[in-house]
């Protein structure tokens, strides 16, 4: 059954690659659209440079750090909001504003305040924070009140309440927050890099490819960004699944 599913996915991917290749052949202009073969060749060429791996590693590291800060801040403040209506009301406008401010505004503010080397991390954190805050708070608010009452009567330890009551209730909320936040953090972080131009970054690679009109190289960097986000998301989801099991 699983093999069948993998074959189906592989066939679908191949069809999309074929459509991409056909479009590239029809357009016949590698500046407008490079085909998958050219993109892979450009990727292989990039892989021959050590700076490529440094750039990819730096971007992943900064995005992950920002993601982690967003997770810690979002979770911590969600717990405080859950415990105190005053904190929740106090934070409500702040979270709403963060969610509605265009990401580019954050990028510019972060560039002014912290410089280009920190912009990826800050933007990733700012994007991840409200996602975790909202999801964790929602998960906490639907925690089984009857189980909490039972835990209170039996004077359960906080660590056991977290393990047996809160985590099972939060599990699906945490997973969906991670899945959403990691993708958004990568997108926002790399956008910030394109604007802020920190050295050794995926965003910087994309920008250089753009000014050189090297579309295949630009698509190769994009492919790397997509793959990095996908792999990291799967990895974190796998770890979280194991921990929450």
């Amino acid at each position, binding site marked *: 059954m699983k093999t069948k599913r993998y074959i189906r996915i592989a066939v679908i991917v191949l069809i999309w690659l074929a459509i991409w290749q056909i479009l590239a052949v029809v357009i016949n202009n590698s500046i407008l659209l490079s085909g998958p073969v050219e993109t892979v060749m450009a990727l292989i060429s990039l892989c021959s440079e050590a700076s490529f791996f440094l750039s990819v590693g730096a971007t992943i590291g900064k995005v992950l750090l920002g993601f982690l800060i967003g997770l810690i801040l979002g979770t911590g403040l969600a717990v405080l909001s859950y415990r105190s209506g005053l904190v929740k009301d106090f934070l409500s406008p702040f979270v709403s504003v963060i969610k509605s401010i265009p990401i580019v505004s954050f990028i510019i503010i972060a560039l002014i305040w912290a410089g280009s080397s920190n912009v990826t991390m800050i933007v990733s954190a700012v994007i991840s924070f409200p996602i975790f805050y909202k999801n964790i708070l929602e998960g906490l608010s639907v925690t089984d009140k*009857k*189980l909490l*009452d*039972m*835990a*209170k*009567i*039996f*004077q*359960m*330890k906080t660590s*056991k309440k977290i*393990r*047996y*009551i809160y985590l*099972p209730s939060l599990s699906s909320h945490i997973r969906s927050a991670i899945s959403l936040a990691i993708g958004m953090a990568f997108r926002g972080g790399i956008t910030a890099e394109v604007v802020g131009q920190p050295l050794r970054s995926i965003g910087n690679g994309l920008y250089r490819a753009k000014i050189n009109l090297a579309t295949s190289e630009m698509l190769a960097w994009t492919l790397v960004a997509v793959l990095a986000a996908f792999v990291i998301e799967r990895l974190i989801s796998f770890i979280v699944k194991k921990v929450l099991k």
Partner: protein
Amino acid sequence: MIELKNISKSFDDKKVLDSFSAVFDEGGYLLKGPSGIGKTTCILLILGLIKPDEGELVIPDNTRFAVCFQENRLFEKETALTNILAVNDNVTEEAAKAAIRELLPEDTAGKKAGELSGGMKRRLAVIRAMLHDSDVVILDEPFTGLDDASRENTIAFIRKHLNGRLLIITSHDERGLDDLKVINVD
């Protein structure tokens, strides 16, 4: 000693308890009355999970309760053994397993609570309450869903593990509980 003095409690304008008074001194008490009369409301009031509209509750400070709720309130995804150990820090794994064996089939300890039948869950909730280190044991309709033999075993189990604590049981069926002091809720 626990005392309820002229307690009144309403839910959605429906008066469940009207100037109800009772004293629970020592030994065992049976809160008796038909379904919906307010027995569970009494229990929740004693446990401090709801507040009375009128009247006074006298409960000594730091009274420790153990309870078997009407709805079991088990961790459905955890094993029967974990359900007991999670709320009973001073109970060893062996003691918990031995208690489970007294009321349930041998292999129940490793089964998830969600996979047990209604009657087995009920008995598990009773075991969890009886093993808890407390001053007062409250069992709200502990025999629901039990056949006569299971009911008898459960009563024997409760007596064995009570260890002189104050016991409050709600039930509409007095069989096997003749020695308990009856308090009618009406």
